[in-house]
């Protein structure tokens, strides 16, 4: 840094900055005449749906599952048009993205798919655009407090984790299972707990080690966690992070079993892959699209504000069983699947203790999947080694 810039600086810099901004616009203007193809037109009954993802669309995980769901809807119905934006942070940026989708692209239905978009961003926009319907993934809609054009949808994918737990317990030789989570939040805790309860339903002595990496995508930490668990004699790994690829591949390298999440990861671990909990957003999004096409909406209540579902409602599916899964394990898994299908299965059936010994579900209680209490889970059940404190 020298002192030569001290003089002659102010005016030049300011003019420069000013012009930079205007020129930016003017040069861009040259192109204005050339593109009128976008937007506008289309059939009268066309539905424009906007999808917003927090990360890249192709992460082999959370965002990809949603993006594939969106693509599935376009394939099924020719009256659906989608607009998509990926890598939108949970700041004012998402508000502006939603606004552009509505104002510029004419979207009337929005699917902002990251949990953190909900409060305050979606709530703010929903008040501003009462005619646009906002479907948010994972949040909890509160009747009366939140605008009527907002809905929240999520699947009981912990049912799939329960079945994966059954398969894992049958396959494990050491009786030690491992779960790599991003953060100790209810959605993750519920998966860990259901996985463990499933495992302990067939072998009560099985334990699950939980490790939290601290963030949704930290490949090096996830690989370290997987290796540490393998070192501790854990022989089945599953996870709840944005992109499970590294966990599956590390497990395969270490010669232990793995159970997938978000999407089908069989190809990553041909020997050790047992099964996996996969989202089926295509069926969910298609259902919503059809409802809207049929003239239903959130505002008059013809589409419910809380959309939840499990296997029976088509929110999730199970990966094909891998080669290491025994007949006995398959039988038990299929039996549980059938029980989920006919609604007779209740995972959180008292008495359930947490791993500090406190009772979290009373003996008299039987918490059905739809129970909102389960969406506020803040404990790890007996049999999980780990802590919810960060």
């Amino acid at each position, binding site marked *: *840094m*020298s002192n030569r810039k001290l003089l002659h600086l102010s005016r030049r810099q300011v003019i420069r900055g000013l012009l930079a901004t205007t020129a930016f616009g003017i040069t861009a203007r040259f192109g204005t005449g050339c593109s009128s193809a976008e937007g506008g037109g289309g059939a009268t009954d066309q539905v424009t749906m906007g999808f917003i993802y927090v*990360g*890249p669309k*192709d*992460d*082999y995980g959370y965002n990809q599952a949603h993006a594939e769901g969106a693509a599935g809807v376009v394939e099924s119905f020719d009256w659906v048009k989608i607009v998509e934006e990926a890598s939108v942070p949970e700041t004012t940026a998402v508000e502006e993205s939603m606004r552009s989708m509505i104002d510029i692209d004419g979207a009337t239905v929005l699917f902002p798919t990251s949990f953190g978009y909900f409060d305050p961003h979606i709530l703010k926009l929903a008040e501003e655009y009462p005619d646009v319907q906002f479907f948010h993934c994972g949040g909890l809609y509160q009747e009366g407090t939140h605008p009527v054009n907002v809905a929240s949808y999520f699947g009981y994918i912990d049912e799939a984790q329960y079945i994966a737990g059954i398969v894992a317990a049958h396959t494990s*030789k*050491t009786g*030690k299972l491992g779960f790599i989570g991003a953060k100790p939040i209810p959605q993750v805790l519920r998966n860990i707990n259901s996985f463990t309860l499933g495992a302990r339903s067939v072998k009560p002595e099985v334990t699950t*080690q*939980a*490790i*939290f*990496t*601290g963030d949704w*995508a*930290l*490949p*090096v*930490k*996830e*690989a*370290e*966690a997987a*290796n*540490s*668990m*393998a*070192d*501790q*004699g*854990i*022989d089945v790994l599953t996870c709840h992070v944005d*992109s499970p*690829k*590294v966990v599956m*591949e*590390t497990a395969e*390298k*270490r*010669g*232990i079993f793995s159970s997938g999440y978000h999407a089908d990861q069989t*190809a*990553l671990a041909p020997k050790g892959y047992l099964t996996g909990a996969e989202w089926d957003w295509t069926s969910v999004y298609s259902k919503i699209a059809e409802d809207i096409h049929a003239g239903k909406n959130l505002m008059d209540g013809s589409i419910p504000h809380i959309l939840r579902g499990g296997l029976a409602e088509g929110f999730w599916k199970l990966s094909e069983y891998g080669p290491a899964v025994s007949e006995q394990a398959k039988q038990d898994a299929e039996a549980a699947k059938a029980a989920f299908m006919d609604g007779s299965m209740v995972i959180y059936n008292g008495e359930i203790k947490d791993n500090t010994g406190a009772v979290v579900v009373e003996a008299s209680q039987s918490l059905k999947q739809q129970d909102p209490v389960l969406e506020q889970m803040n404990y790890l059940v007996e049999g999980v*080694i*780990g*802590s919810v*404190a*960060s």
Partner: protein
Amino acid sequence: MATEALGWWGVPLAIAAGMMRGGTPFLFVSLGECLTEKSGKINLGLEGTLLMGAMSAYAISYLTGSPWLGVIAAGLAGVIFGLIHGWLSQQPRVNDVAVGIAMIIFGSGIAFFLGKPFIQPSAPQLATINLGAWSSLPPVQSALQISPLFLLGVAIAPLMHWFFQSTRWGLFIRAVGDSPEAARAMGVSIFKVRMLSVVAGSFLAGIGGASLSLYYPGLWSERVSSGQGLMAVALVIFAHWNPIQCLWASLLFGGAQALGPALQSVGIEQGYYLFNAAPYVLTLLIMIITCSPKRTLSGAPGALGTDT
């Protein structure tokens, strides 16, 4: 597959393994940065180079089936980025820190853009050298699966030290970094020396990227580096611009990445965010202890951070 539990022994083992696996990218990037900074320029853009290296290595390995071609491609990608940085940061009135940050954005943008089709497929990985065959314990065997890239890095560190101390070219680089006027008097072209240093440093950083995508964690994703390229800049200062100490520092930083998960796996559950920040706190503390206004940091290139 009967694995025995290691208990508390798992922590030192995980750290030792983490040093070698997770330390490799740090090693290459820090050696590259060390070379660059010795010539008097700083290259914060190595984060972008690391990502570009990781992406190109994975893509080429997948497309050709040869991971070593991937490593070469990563190095070449590094060379291209190095040329841009080396040329741009030596223009008059252009600050190298600013160019570095612009290169992080540009480099990661290009890597993400071109890398989209390669997130899903599995590319052939570099074969490892298994030194753990003597042990019957699978964890030990796994920890001793050493990457040839790690060995290469370990070999380059003393070589670079020797290069700086005992060769004519090493002297030129140090002269250019320490006092450009003296170097100019010696008849050395400052532009050329810095250009070559930046390009060679960037080449090494590209190889570091290859170690991320072809060895550990062994995949291409947009979050694969999570700031390791930027960290390497701090690491060089931690190592006092000494390539051999870069090696130790890289091992330390690599091991630190394994600390949080390893402690959780033996039951220390809380404060993992703080454990994850341990390397940064440690570097800062060491800087505070070893720096002093009375003398300059030993090994610090005199022209670093100046506009000369």
